[in-house]
């Protein structure tokens, strides 16, 4: 067991981890279930979290390596109880069915728009190609990303 300290959704936390624990397993012991393991192989994006501002697959990241890092998950909200622009756009467009993949898609979309505020459809498809939706809501997801980009632009 090793004690690690990191910032989780803006709050300093400490945790006890074994070397073989991955980030999803650690977050679950801390009561956070937004990042969930599905493929366990880096392919599907259901386990997406941000480490020091970069999207990573929680299933392929050793929990011990979070020591000293800033970690953000889907549970972090800008304002208490409110959805952000990307979440609103996903709801508006019905860009999910069961919702299992949605936290990953939302986090990836936030990253995409932060780097590229007006992505083309080709750029959206490439950026999100590492996220899988078994309910196949891909057309709605692409519309949601485009809507989020428009709302962001209007609000900027």
């Amino acid at each position, binding site marked *: 067991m090793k004690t690690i300290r990191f910032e989780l959704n803006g709050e300093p936390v400490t945790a006890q981890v*074994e*070397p*073989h624990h*991955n980030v999803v397993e650690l977050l679950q012991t801390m009561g956070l279930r937004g990042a969930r393991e599905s493929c*366990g*192989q*880096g*392919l599907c*994006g259901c386990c*997406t979290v941000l480490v020091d501002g*970069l*999207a*990573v*697959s929680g299933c*392929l*990241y*050793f929990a*011990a*390596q979070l020591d000293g890092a800033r970690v953000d998950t889907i549970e972090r909200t800008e304002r208490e109880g409110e959805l952000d622009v990307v979440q609103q756009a996903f709801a508006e467009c019905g860009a999910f069915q069961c919702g299992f993949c949605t936290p990953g898609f939302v986090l*990836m979309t936030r*990253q995409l728009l932060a780097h590229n505020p007006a992505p083309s459809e080709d750029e959206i*498809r*490439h*950026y999100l*190609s*590492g*996220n899988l939706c078994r309910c196949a809501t891909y057309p709605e997801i692409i519309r949601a990303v485009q809507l989020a980009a428009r709302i962001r632009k209007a609000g900027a």
Partner: protein
Amino acid sequence: MRPFELLEPSSLREALGLLDTADETVRPAGGGTALMLMMKAGVLEPSRLISLRRIEPAWAEISQSADAVEIGALATLSAIEHSGIVRSELPVIARTLRTLANVRVRNVATLGGNLAHADPHMDLPPVLIALGASVIIASRGAERELPVAELISGYYETTLASGELIVRVRVPKQFARFSAYRKITTRSADDWPALGVAVALDREGPVLREARIAVSAAFDRPLRLAAAEAVLRGASIDDEAVLIHAGDAAADEARPIADERGSAAYKRELIRVHVRRALRDALDAQGGTP
């Protein structure tokens, strides 16, 4: 996963010291993306991982001299993809990275880990071989340089000795050489390749002086296709028939191995068509931007 110990040395020196052991179950870790998959599958059971991510940041830097770009082995694939130096000097690398794995893997995976993994399906090795790149390898008290083509020796095998680390990759600037990479996927657009073809062409006016063709995902390791290269040497770039001959020569000399993305016969036909198309791409791109 079997229990193991994870160490995070803060310098390259310290890491090399920890790796200087006869114990083969002590392994270096870069981004850990390939390692973790192998450990989950039970094909790798290290007793101790020496993570390189806290060694000096200099080993993740990307720099250039008059004739080469040097990339630290700890640079992430994302950092390389977005590097201004790489995009202007080696645009084919930036283009290749765009469809390699996915954003999250590229944010974490390192160049050193990518090359040491030696999965024959990987996208970067054929590109680096075509560009004439080499790796700088360090061990306790020694350093050597080796062409990427000589680093990868077989199916998940390299010529690295235990205790050795890839610390830098040196890619010659391409100047008048034109290059292209074609990743052919058969299941989804951003899948692992069923075939990878990288070409780099050196021309003088309308005449091809030298061609390098490296093919991956078809053999136990990425390989140059010498017969196809010979067809192109001294040929005119305006001669479309020579590109077809080169594709045929490539298909004739290749001995592809089947995998779940295509049979050997299918891969041979992919080689015939995509060697020709990659040559066309390189002539059309003329070093264009990614």
